[in-house]
């Protein structure tokens, strides 16, 4: 699909009522220190202006003229939004910057009544939102790109690209000016004429890249597309003739979709690990919520419960606007799962129940907030363990190793401050010893007992910091801290700083 007037359409849609848009709208862009016409409205084109014209000429030709500077970011965002909305036709949508979209309709055309009907539907729907749009269907992306721009509404039969593309002018190839001039010199005016030449001649004059592009355009080769979203494993959707707004109907339709999905999953012996519900609004916006589970899930009521928890936990509640006209439930990741047997092993059952609890908590608060820990093989205390979302992997097999010897008191504190906090330390009795008192968080602590130093060197290959001497200290009123000196005297720094990193139990 090609939206020839995307920048101006964006502005006209938004400011339809403004008075200064009564004049024809032209968008200007600066190039080579001069202003050129970047995009123009239909009326401006009818008055004889064209793209790429110097702005001064345009202003001289047509008065009054409404000129707005180009905003490519906003245009790209709008194209993203339209691509999101085109998700309702096919899940494989990719961007053809700056003003086009590729929709891969392999296998989806029959749902809309055939290719011709689908092209008409898509064109009408996008045009209904206020955009000028042209489209074409072909087997390769480049051929469709060229046809949409120069021969709109063409549907090429499979293998018929060469014939369909032949009458197009050579500007449809979109190669650089030098190549265009060379082709014109040679008297080749249409793509058909270029194709009739030997590829060895063309590659000699214009490069192998040109020949590949030509081949793709003629349908002999294919350049793969990058879809914007991953293709879901399974999908169930429901369209509404009348857009729905009320919560009960939304919940009921979600339940129906979940049941449909669960029957398909059961038939295939799979379970869903990642679910996404997409709500398509009539005004073009698409809202999505996603939920992850630890174990493959097949039960429709549990799916619905997790989705409801996520919906309830959203910061802004789901806003239907004028209504949703399509609700889709996708299983983004479906895995093999064994049939659920009632296990007499209570451990297995308990593990599964804990897994469900973790799923519910993760759906409510967000996956990163429910964590379990894995040990890391490093001496640096703050990196000694890593918190990972609890649904990610199995944690029972981790190996944790004790730092203290049997019978000794703990060597590592129960709590570690996120960032070690600097403390003002009184001068130590021995150069390598602990301080006699220190000031932390506006309180003074007198050190009664101290043990150390435990020397921890930073990872020299990462250039990460100075060697630390850790001390386990107990203050006179019974509080136990873990402090360290950052750097060694006389070697790293003249006045090394002291930090408090941990609190013992």
């Amino acid at each position: 699909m090609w939206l020839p007037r995307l920048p101006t359409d964006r502005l006209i849609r938004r400011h339809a009522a403004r008075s200064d848009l009564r004049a024809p709208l032209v968008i200007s862009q600066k190039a080579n220190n001069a202003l050129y016409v970047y995009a123009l409205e239909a009326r401006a084109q009818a008055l004889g202006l064209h793209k790429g014209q110097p702005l001064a000429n345009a202003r001289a030709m047509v008065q009054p003229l409404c000129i707005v500077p180009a905003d490519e970011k906003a245009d790209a965002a709008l194209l993203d939004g339209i691509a999101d909305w085109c998700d309702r036709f096919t899940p494989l949508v990719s961007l053809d910057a700056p003003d086009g979209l590729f929709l891969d309709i392999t296998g989806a055309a029959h749902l809309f009544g055939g290719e011709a009907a689908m092209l008409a539907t898509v064109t009408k729907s996008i045009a209904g939102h206020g955009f000028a749009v042209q489209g074409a269907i072909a087997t390769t992306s480049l051929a469709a790109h060229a046809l949409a721009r120069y021969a709109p509404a063409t549907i090429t039969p499979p293998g018929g690209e060469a014939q369909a593309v032949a009458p197009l002018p050579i500007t449809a190839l979109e190669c650089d000016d030098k190549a265009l001039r060379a082709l014109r010199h040679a008297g080749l005016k249409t793509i058909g004429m270029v194709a009739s030449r030997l590829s060895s001649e063309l590659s000699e004059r214009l490069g192998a890249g040109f020949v590949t592009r030509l081949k793709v355009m003629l349908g002999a080769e294919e350049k793969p597309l990058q879809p914007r979203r991953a293709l879901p494993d399974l999908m169930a959707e429901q369209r509404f003739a009348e857009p729905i707004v009320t919560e009960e109907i939304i919940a009921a339709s979600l339940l129906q979709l979940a049941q449909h999905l669960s029957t398909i999953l059961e038939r295939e012996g799979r379970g869903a690990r990642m679910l996404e519900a997409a709500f398509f609004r009539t005004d073009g916006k698409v809202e999505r919520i996603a939920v992850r589970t630890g174990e493959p899930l097949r039960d429709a009521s549990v799916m619905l419960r997790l989705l409801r928890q996520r919906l309830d936990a959203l910061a802004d509640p789901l806003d239907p606007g004028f209504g949703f006209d399509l609700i889709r439930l996708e299983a983004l990741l479906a895995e093999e799962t064994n049939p659920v047997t009632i296990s007499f092993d209570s451990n297995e059952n308990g593990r599964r129940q804990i897994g469900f609890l973790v799923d519910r908590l993760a759906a409510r608060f967000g996956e990163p907030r429910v964590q379990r820990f894995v040990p890391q093989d490093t001496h640096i205390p703050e990196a000694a363990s890593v918190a990972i979302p609890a649904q990610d992997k199995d944690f029972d097999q981790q190996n944790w190793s004790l730092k203290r010897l049997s019978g000794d008191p703990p060597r590592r504190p129960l709590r570690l401050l996120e960032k070690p906090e600097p403390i003002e330390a009184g001068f130590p009795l021995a150069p390598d010893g602990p301080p006699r008192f220190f000031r932390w968080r506006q309180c003074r602590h007198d050190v009664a007992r101290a043990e150390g130093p435990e020397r921890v060197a930073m990872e020299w290959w990462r250039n990460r910091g100075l060697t630390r001497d850790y001390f386990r200290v107990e203050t006179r009123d019974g509080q136990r801290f873990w402090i360290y000196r950052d750097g060694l005297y006389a070697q790293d720094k003249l006045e090394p700083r002291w930090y408090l990193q941990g609190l013992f139990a």
Partner: protein
Amino acid sequence: MNKSAKLAELRHSLARYGLPNDRPAVPLGPAAVDTVLGGGLRPGALHEVFVRGWNAGGFAVLLAMLAAGTKPLFWVRPDYEAMEYGALSPQGLLELGGDPRRLAMVKVRGSADALSAASDILACPHVGALLLEMEGQPKCLDLVASRRLVLAAEESGVTAVMLRAGAVPEPSAALTRWQVASAPSSPADDDWGNPVFDAQLVRHRQGGLGHFLLRWDPEHGCFDTTDIGVVAAAPADRQAYPQARRAV
């Protein structure tokens, strides 16, 4: 049934404080403490721990660890507590005798979220214990909320330990209430460093009160009271302790 048999039966049930058969009390270690508690820490109940100082929160962690046993331990932690008191170091938990593989941490934004997470966790009977950290004096933690937690814990058998730092005690439906501060280790102790707590059982719905000096023994996974020494009286206006924060 004759009178003496009935009396014996009543005495027996009173001695066990009505514990159901499949939920034995979790002994803390020292006989004095266990007697006062009626056998030990009662599972399926809510225990409140009010702490002063930076270290005494470990007492609640150890209680929860004992109550959980081999089952999973869930720790619900508001973001403020993580910033103020530091993040949990699983290595530290391991050094105290705990098992980091059994620990799941739920980080919530505030008190309301914490209570809702707690009610969900207390509904699952396969959880061993819940450690609920609450910040300050939140308005949502009133008598009704604590009663709800108590009922949920009774139903499922999950022990709930509520850790309140920087708070003053208010009416609640908890079974026991402790006020804990960190105590210095004995001067004669060469192997100092094991956690020592000055723990006061200030409220007990079904038993007596007490004031204990407890030291944790990581090797045996229990408290003990041997040769700890004299505790200096906790001064009321000591600079080193954070003051109670007012209502949230």
